[in-house]
C-alpha cells in the first residue's frame, strides 16, 4: 500500500517537473498578476507549441480574417464616398 502511495506521489511530482508549475487542481484563483490566472492542468503543458497538442496553425490561414475585414472596410469607404458625392448609394 505504501509502495503504491509512493509511486503515485512520485508520478505526480514527475508530472509537475515535466510540465513546470502545473496546478494540481486548477480552480482559477492562483493569479500571477491582475487578470492572469490561468494555469495548466495536471498532465498538460504550459505551452502547447511543440507539444502533442500543438495545432500547428498556418500563419496564412490566421491572417485571412484580417484581410477580409480590411477589404470590406475599403469597399464600404468607397461606397460612402460616392454616396456623399452623388447622394445615391451604389453597392
Amino acid at each position: 500500500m505504501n509502495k503504491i502511495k509512493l509511486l503515485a506521489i512520485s508520478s505526480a511530482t514527475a508530472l509537475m517537473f515535466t510540465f513546470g508549475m502545473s496546478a494540481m487542481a486548477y480552480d482559477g484563483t492562483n493569479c500571477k498578476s491582475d487578470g492572469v490566472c490561468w494555469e495548466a492542468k495536471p498532465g498538460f503543458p504550459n505551452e502547447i507549441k511543440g507539444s502533442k497538442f500543438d495545432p500547428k496553425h498556418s500563419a496564412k490561414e490566421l491572417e485571412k480574417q484580417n484581410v477580409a475585414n480590411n477589404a470590406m472596410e475599403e469597399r464600404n469607404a468607397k461606397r460612402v464616398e460616392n454616396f456623399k458625392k452623388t447622394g445615391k448609394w451604389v453597392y
Partner: protein
Amino acid sequence: MNIRTRGKSYLSVATSAALLGSVVGLLASGSVFANKNLVELQKSEANWVMQGKNYSANHFSTATQVNKSNVKDLEPAWSFSTGALSGHEGAPLVVGDIMYIHSPYPNNTFAVSLKEPGKILWEHKPKQDPAARAVACCDVVNRGLAYWPGDSKTPAMIVKSQLDGNVVALNAKTGEVYWKVETADISVGQTQTAAPFVMNDLVVQGSSGAELGVRGYLTAFDMHTGEMVWRWYATGPDSEIGLDKDFNSANPHYGQKDLGTKTWEGDAWKIGGGTNWGWYAYDPDLNMFYYGSGNPAPWNETMRPGDNKWTMTIWGRDADTGLAKFGYQKTPHDEWDYAGVNVMMLSEQKTADGKMHKLLTHPDRNGIVYTLDRENGDLISANKMDETANWVKKVDLKTGLPIRDPEFSTSMGNRSHDICPSAMGFHNQGMDSYDPNKELFFLGINHLCMDWEPYMLPYRAGQFFVGANVWTYPGPKGDRQKGIGSGQVKAYNAITGKFAWEKMEKFAVWGGTTATAGDLVFYGTLDGFIKARDTDTGKLLWKFRLPSGAVGHPMTYTHDGVQYVAIYYGVGGWPAVGLVFDLNDPSAGLGAVGAFKELAHYTQMGGGVIVFSLDGQSPFTKDVNLGEYEN
C-alpha cells in the same frame, strides 16, 4: 466630417481616443435631436421601438389594460405569416401605426399596417448568397430590427442585419434601401444574427461565427451616411480592442493593459472568438452602452492556453467612441462554451450599502446572474441561477474570480460527465424583463447539463472550428430519460439574491420574458405556447397554443386604446436544430439534438406573428367592413 477610424495597431489608444473625441464633438450637435426622439418614443406604450423595449432593456410595460384579473380573456386579434421557416428569434417593432416584422434567413422584412392589421405597406426581400446558411452555427436565426427616428437631414430608418454579412438601412416609410454595408465575410466564417442597436446617431452591429474561429468585433456606423465610425475587437492588441485610458481603473484586479494578446499563446487570439451576437443596453446619462463578448475559439480549451481575454466579458463602453471604460471577464479560459453575450438589463436600486446605484444585471450562460455597478464595473452580486450549476463553487466578489470545481473541468483525452449548465447555458439568447416596482427580474431559464469530450482540429478559415463533442440533457430537476423538464421561469431579486418564485417548464425557456404593470409576465415556449404568469406568485394564469414553437420574446403595445400582446411563432434556433434539419444523433447540432429529442412530438416548423387582445378586439371587430372591397 470625413473623420473615420477603426482599431489599427499603428494607432495608440491615446491617439484613437483623441481623434474620436474630436469626431464626437463634431457629431454631437447633429445627433441630439434624433436620439431625443428615440428616447421619447420608447416612453410611450404605443411603441416598441427596440428589441429591449427601451434603452434599459427591461422589457417592462406600464400598460395595465391586460392584467392578472382579466388575462384569461386574451384571444387572438390578428396574425401574419412571414413565409419563412426556422427559428424566429427577437420580436417585431411597433412605431406609431406600423409594425415592422422580420424573419430568419432569407431575412425578409415587412412593414404592416396596424390600422388595417396584416396589410403590407412595404417589404424588403434581399437576395443573399445561400452559402451563408452553411456557415451559420445554429440554424439561420435573426434577432430583429432596429429603428432610427431620422432628423431634418435624413429620413427615419429601419436597420436590419443579414446572415450574409450586410447591414442595411431602409427608409422606414417606403422600404427603399438608403445604405447597405458589408460587415461580415462568409468566406472566412463570419455571419450576422444579432439585431442592430441604435444609440445617438450611430447603429452598432455585432458579429457571429465563433464556432468557426471568428475573432469577435463590434462596428458602429453613422446613420446618415453608412460610414464606419469605429470598430473594436474582443481580442488582440489594446489598440484594436479599444481600451480607454482609464480602463478598469476602479477594478484593476479585473486586468488592464495588453491582456488581449498576453493571455493567448502566439497568434491564437486572431482566431479566438469572442463574437457578440447578443443584446445591448444604453444609459443616455452616462453615455455608456453595455454588451457581452462570447466564447473563445475553439471549444477545446487545451488548444488555447491562457485566460483568453477579452472573450466572455461584460463591456461598458463610451457610446460615441466605443472605447471601453470597464471590462469584466466572467469565465476566464472558458472550458464549456459559456458564451457571455446574454441580455444586459439596467436598473436603479439600493444596494447593501444603502445607497442607490446604477446597476446592470446579466443572466449569463454559465449559470450565474451578475449584477454590476454600471458606472465603473464594480461587482455587486453574482448568484447561481440554479443551485445545480456545478462548474463553479462560487464567485469571489472581491476578486471577481469564479472558484472552479476541478471535478467538472474539461480537457483533451477525457469525456467529462454531468457538467451543469450545458454549453447551451442555464440562460441563452432570451431577452428577459425587470419590474422596477417589484424589483424583480423574470428569467427564462434552460435547465440543461452535459457530457463534453474535446478533440483536436486544424483551423481553416471559413470552416467549423469547434473541437468538442457534446451530449446535452435535462438537468437534475428534469427527466433525463424522457428528455423533458429542461426549462424554468424564475423571479429574482438581484440585491438579496433570493428567488421570489420558480416554476419548471417542459422545455428550455429560450426566448425570454416580458413583464407588465398588470402583474403579468409573458413568455413563449419551445413546444408552442405563449403563457402568462402572475408576477407576484408565478401562478399560471393563461396560455394559448401557437402554430409552432416560440424562441422569440413577447412584446406589447397599445393602439387606438387597445393593449395588444404579440409574439413570433417559428420553432428553430439552437435548441431545435434537430427538428429543423432532421437530425437524430444525440450529439449533433452541437449537442442539442439529444436534449430536445421530444420536441418533434409537440411542434413543427412555421413562422409568423400572432397578436392578442382582450376578447380578440381589433380594428376588424370594431368595423367588420374594414378592408372590404368597395365600388
